[in-house]
């Protein structure tokens, strides 16, 4: 028995303390963001800081909704959901073709994922000119097409791994039983790859949700996303902290719920990929 060894009770207490500390470090910024969004301007700039406001007043949110700023969250929601939807459908079909028909041999798949390496900023200027030319600037379709295209390599790459794991016999059995290839995709591949499908979709959604560069350059007033909107509150003279905080909260909530609902699939989908390596 070494003298330095602590009792089990002590050890447990120590662990709880460490866990509590880590939790505080991670949760505090989020708490602070939420709490600022409910503060009055006086409380925001008070010193010493107001750790928790006397009353949760909703004026900051009220302003965002009255001025129509909150609609940018809706824009983000539309852009991210629609582009995720298309990227998942197209990407899964493409991945299926890569896996089952060996489309493009060994190299096409690698070429596709290599597109992911391209820095967006390298193409944003030519893209802007092209969009001006075809009239897609500041339009839903412009950003949806772009986000879909940018998510595709990732979706194809992920789905390729999940589809490779589906036993071929299941598909063959469906083919013999009377399904066409499209029905096989719908009735066998989608349900079999469900966990992977959802996990991939969440990441694709979050990518589009957080996208900033293209949204900044390619939108004006009509389809401004919430990420771009938040930057409008950083002024030359002063920053509108209340609006920044309230807007950020509005921008966090949809992602929070998406991840919460999909959590079950997320964990399974990610670990499925992990086993494959």
């Amino acid at each position, binding site marked *: 028995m070494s003298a330095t060894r602590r009792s089990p009770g002590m050890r447990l207490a120590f662990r709880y303390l460490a866990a509590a500390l880590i939790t505080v470090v991670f949760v505090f910024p989020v708490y602070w963001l939420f709490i600022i969004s409910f503060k009055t301007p006086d409380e925001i700039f008070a010193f010493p800081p107001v750790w928790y406001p006397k009353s949760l007043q909703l004026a900051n949110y009220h302003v965002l909704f009255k001025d129509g700023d909150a609609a940018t969250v809706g824009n983000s929601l539309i852009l991210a959901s629609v582009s995720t939807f298309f990227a998942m459908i197209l990407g899964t079909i493409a991945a299926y073709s890569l896996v089952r028909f060996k489309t493009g041999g060994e190299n096409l798949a690698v070429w596709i994922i290599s597109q992911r390496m391209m820095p967006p900023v390298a193409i944003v200027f030519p893209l802007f000119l092209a969009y001006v030319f075809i009239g897609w600037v500041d339009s839903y379709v412009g950003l949806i097409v772009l986000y879909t295209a940018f998510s595709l390599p990732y979706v194809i790459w992920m789905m390729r791994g999940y589809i490779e794991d589906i*036993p071929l*016999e*299941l598909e*063959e*059995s*469906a*083919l*013999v*039983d*009377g*399904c*066409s290839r499209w*029905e096989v995709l719908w*009735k*066998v591949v989608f*349900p*079999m790859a*469900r966990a992977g499908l959802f996990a991939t979709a969440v990441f694709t959604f979050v990518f589009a949700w957080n996208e900033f560069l293209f949204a900044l350059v390619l939108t004006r007033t009509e389809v401004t996303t919430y990420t771009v909107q938040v930057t409008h509150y950083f002024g030359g003279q002063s920053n509108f902290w209340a609006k920044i905080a309230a807007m950020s909260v509005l921008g966090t909530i949809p992602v929070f719920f998406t991840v919460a609902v999909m959590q079950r699939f997320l964990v399974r989908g990610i670990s499925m990929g992990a086993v494959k390596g």
Partner: protein
Amino acid sequence: MSDLKISNLHKHYGSFHAVKGIDLEVPSGEFTVLVGPSGCGKSTLLRTIAGLEDSSSGTVEIAGRDVTWARPRDRDIAMVFQNYALYPYLNVKDNIAFGLRARKFAEAEVEKRVSRAAGMLGIGHLLKRFPRELSGGQRQRVAIGRAIVRDAVLYLFDEPLSNLDAQLRDDMRVEIKRLHQELGRTMVYVTHDQIEAMTLADRIVLLRDGLIEQQGSPLDLFERPKTRFVAGFLGSPKMNFIPATATETGVALNDGTRLDMPGRSGMKTGQAVVLGLRPQYIAMAGQSLAKGHARVPVTIELVQPTGSRVQATMPLGGASIIAELAAHDVSRPGERTEIDIDMTRAVIIDPKSEQVI
């Protein structure tokens, strides 16, 4: 009428020639077993019939219709796979109903057929369960159920029992045979297990290296093999092969033992041959020597009881042979005794061409 007709079928995988020109006709209602050693092309042939592989050349006709280039679903076939191929996200009922729904059957009809098939297979009480909640044997029943709910012209099985343990395999073999008798459908069944082939088949098609080595009824192949390969492949324990020389009246083994063969024919005296003896046609010497039998003294080396029978190993004419004897005939190794060989059942093989003379 024949339900399946294959003409001069070839299959290449890249540069590898897996099926090398097969002609096969399967009459309506017949149970045909494709058997052969691993890698001989059984699965490839079956998958080409199903349309899961394209044929490189040759034609496949099902129910009189050329389906060589038809999609699997347009061939009017049902298939049972080696690994069951059950959909893990569907329960037993939906698994069985899958093919019917894919073909847009009315739900009432689906209901009726599923419960009938489930009844036939004794899985009626499992319909609500998911595949992961079933034992291997139950899964196999569901897989078979999925095939038999459909009215296909042709039923294909690719080693459906190879994942089951020995006891279950015997039960399911009986089940499949019973199903065939009840349904009277044309079935093509792939296995590498010669016992399955012998017990199930109306007709065995023995494949070797992508070619048909011999086809016929199980008894035909067992009693009248055309080549050494067929003789050695079917039967358990395997046929004994002993080098010998042809004499005027029969054969002489290398140690000088002379065995007379009634009805000896086709051999030239003095020709080197191989004598093939089935372990089942060797018995302990009886009271009197039956006609066409030869009596030889031997020393038993090894005894393997299998229950009612005993497999005894003994040297004969420079080779080591196995005889299947009655259990009470031998007791221990080292015993000196005499055996009677039924020479009317013996096969004579030309060692050069490997053909049976």
